[in-house]
């Protein structure tokens, strides 16, 4: 059992080591990387199944009893996030086999990708706040190197902004941990949850909560802390920005949800009210930013920011239904965003540019690719029957139940604006005639094997998204059960500390 819990950390770790040992042989690295990603997905699915049937699982590293040692915990939410991280990892690894150039592969691309996935899985599974900081640093250092791998001019410039803001967020996080430890003298999340209930200085605790909100808010790219994201995510090659878009901001969202359901629930009006305000402003500023862009991936980056707003909107409302909405939305958004970024990479491969005014005519030349863009784009905008519609539907319902009409209005308006933004991309990239001066390589010139590697991972992700959209029942059941575990942390505490709260 305990091995199953740590396997999502161990498997990518060993894959990365093996890939490093195979430094000389690019082909061997590619094989190791693909196998490792597939094994990780299998392990993550087994873990999720186990948690689904047997409830929250916890293990103590090195048999140091909680709260003294480091705890690894998997509840439904974190197990599902691990499954998604593994799935996105596999999709991106397969896509990279065709989309990443030889130089980047030779300089350890695959090893770095697996280190990144290890950091993400570790952050999802840890039950210790300082350990969470360590996993953040693991995934950050891997993402720093991936961001500037290849050292193109734009990449270096984006990397400086990305590195600075993320290091700043880490320093804030460390500061917050220091004050938290000074207040209650423990770092175990479950133990903290118990200790914080009896803290006598609620004002200090609220300040601390805001410090955590700032630290995780930078990582999750919420308003007004998101400016590093659209300045950097469009600079690395498409598979790298796809895995960043799919997973990294969601680690921030996950941490926010974890911390603001387990630890800081003493003054919901202030802290969660602030989160709700940030959610509304994130949605609006993100989408307004997207409307004025003319670069395919920059539009997607701003949409990424905008839709983080929906994920924390449920947290801000803080009802079981709203949290279920947040979880549902996060799960489907990972799939949608990754596939959109992967499609943008395929478009780049065909036309050699991300600029909207130089793209065009892809609907007539590549109808299949156009469909692969259109479905997640409609889902992003919240069109029924796609998965994004159900996510927004649950959140809007929860907002109406809580009489928070302003945030509901913001969510609906942003849905419409997203539709406008996506239809701009559709008409510019796929629908309008290709500009005359364009003479980039067309699809026919790409080898068909390479083209399949571009399209098949996206097709599988889109199929999964369509499945969630057409058959949302089981996924909503899962979201409700996961939200139930978050709202009532007694099971979590029981699993970690072995005693009831």
């Amino acid at each position, binding site marked *: 059992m305990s091995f199953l819990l740590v396997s999502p950390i161990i498997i990518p770790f060993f894959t990365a080591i093996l890939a490093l040992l195979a430094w000389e042989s690019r082909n061997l690295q590619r094989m190791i990387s693909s196998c490792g990603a597939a094994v990780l997905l299998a392990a993550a699915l087994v873990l999720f199944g186990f948690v689904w049937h047997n409830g929250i699982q916890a293990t103590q590293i090195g048999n140091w009893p909680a709260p003294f040692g480091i705890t690894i915990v998997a509840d439904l939410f974190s197990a599902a996030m691990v499954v998604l991280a593994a799935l996105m990892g596999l999709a991106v690894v397969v896509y990279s086999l065709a989309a990443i150039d030889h130089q980047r592969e030779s300089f350890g691309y695959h090893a770095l990708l697996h280190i990144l996935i290890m950091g993400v899985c570790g952050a999802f599974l840890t039950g210790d706040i300082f350990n969470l900081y360590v996993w953040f640093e693991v995934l950050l250092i891997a993402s720093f190197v991936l961001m500037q791998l290849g050292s193109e001019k734009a990449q270096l410039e984006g990397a400086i902004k990305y590195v600075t803001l993320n290091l700043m967020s880490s320093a804030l996080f460390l500061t917050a941990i220091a004050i938290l430890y000074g207040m209650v*003298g423990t770092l175990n999340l479950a133990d903290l949850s118990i200790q914080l209930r009896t803290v006598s200085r609620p004002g200090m605790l609220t300040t601390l909560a805001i410090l955590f909100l700032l630290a995780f808010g930078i990582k999750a790219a919420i308003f007004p802390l998101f400016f590093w994201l659209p300045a950097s995510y469009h600079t690395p090659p498409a598979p790298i920005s796809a895995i960043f878009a799919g997973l990294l901001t969601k680690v921030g969202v996950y941490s926010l949800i974890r911390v603001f359901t387990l630890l800081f629930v003493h003054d919901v009006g202030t802290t969660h009210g602030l989160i709700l305000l940030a959610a509304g402003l994130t949605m609006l500023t993100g989408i307004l930013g997207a409307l004025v*862009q003319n670069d395919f991936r920059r539009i997607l980056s701003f949409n990424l920011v905008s839709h983080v707003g929906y994920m924390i909107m449920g947290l801000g409302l803080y009802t079981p239904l709203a949290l279920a909405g947040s979880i549902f939305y996060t799960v489907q958004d990972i799939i949608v965003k990754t596939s959109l970024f992967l499609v943008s990479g395929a478009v780049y491969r065909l036309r050699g540019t991300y600029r909207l005014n130089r793209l065009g005519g892809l609907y007539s030349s590549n109808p299949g690719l156009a469909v692969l863009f259109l479905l997640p784009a409609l889902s992003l905008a919240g069109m029924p029957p796609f998965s994004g519609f159900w996510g927004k539907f649950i959140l809007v319902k929860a907002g109406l139940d809580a009489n928070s009409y302003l945030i509901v209005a913001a969510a609906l308006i942003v849905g419409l604006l997203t539709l406008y933004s996506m239809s701009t991309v559709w008409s510019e990239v796929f629908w309008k005639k290709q500009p005359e001066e364009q003479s980039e390589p067309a699809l026919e010139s790409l080898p068909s094997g390479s083209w399949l590697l571009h399209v098949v991972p996206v097709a599988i992700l889109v199929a999964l998204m369509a499945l969630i959209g057409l058959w949302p029942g089981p996924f909503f059941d899962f979201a409700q059960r996961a939200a139930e575990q978050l709202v009532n942390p007694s099971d979590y505490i029981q699993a970690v500390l072995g005693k009831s709260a």
Partner: protein
Amino acid sequence: MEVVLSFVVGGLYAAAIYLMMRRSIVKLILGLALLGHAANLLIFTIGRLVRGAPPIMLHGESQLIGQFADPVPEALILTAIVIGFGVQAFAIVLIRRSHQTLGTDDLDKMQSTESFD
């Protein structure tokens, strides 16, 4: 002693943020390094300073009583220092490479990834 350290920590945070708001990337990195030191020193100070009371249990005791030095903050700082060292080493190489490639160390001139065209 704790009062003195508190002022040192505050001074470090202020200096770090001042340096980070300058335009030069070299000062930016120095600011980031200072920010890490400030956080580490904060952990040290907030763990309460105790002299001559090691956290060692004598034979027959089952728990520590009274004042003793808490070993956890030191462990946290050690981890944070190691991580900070690695990250700062990377950041220094990054700014050197950026300076070579972009030909400037002025953050205000690095706006090509944020422009519209």
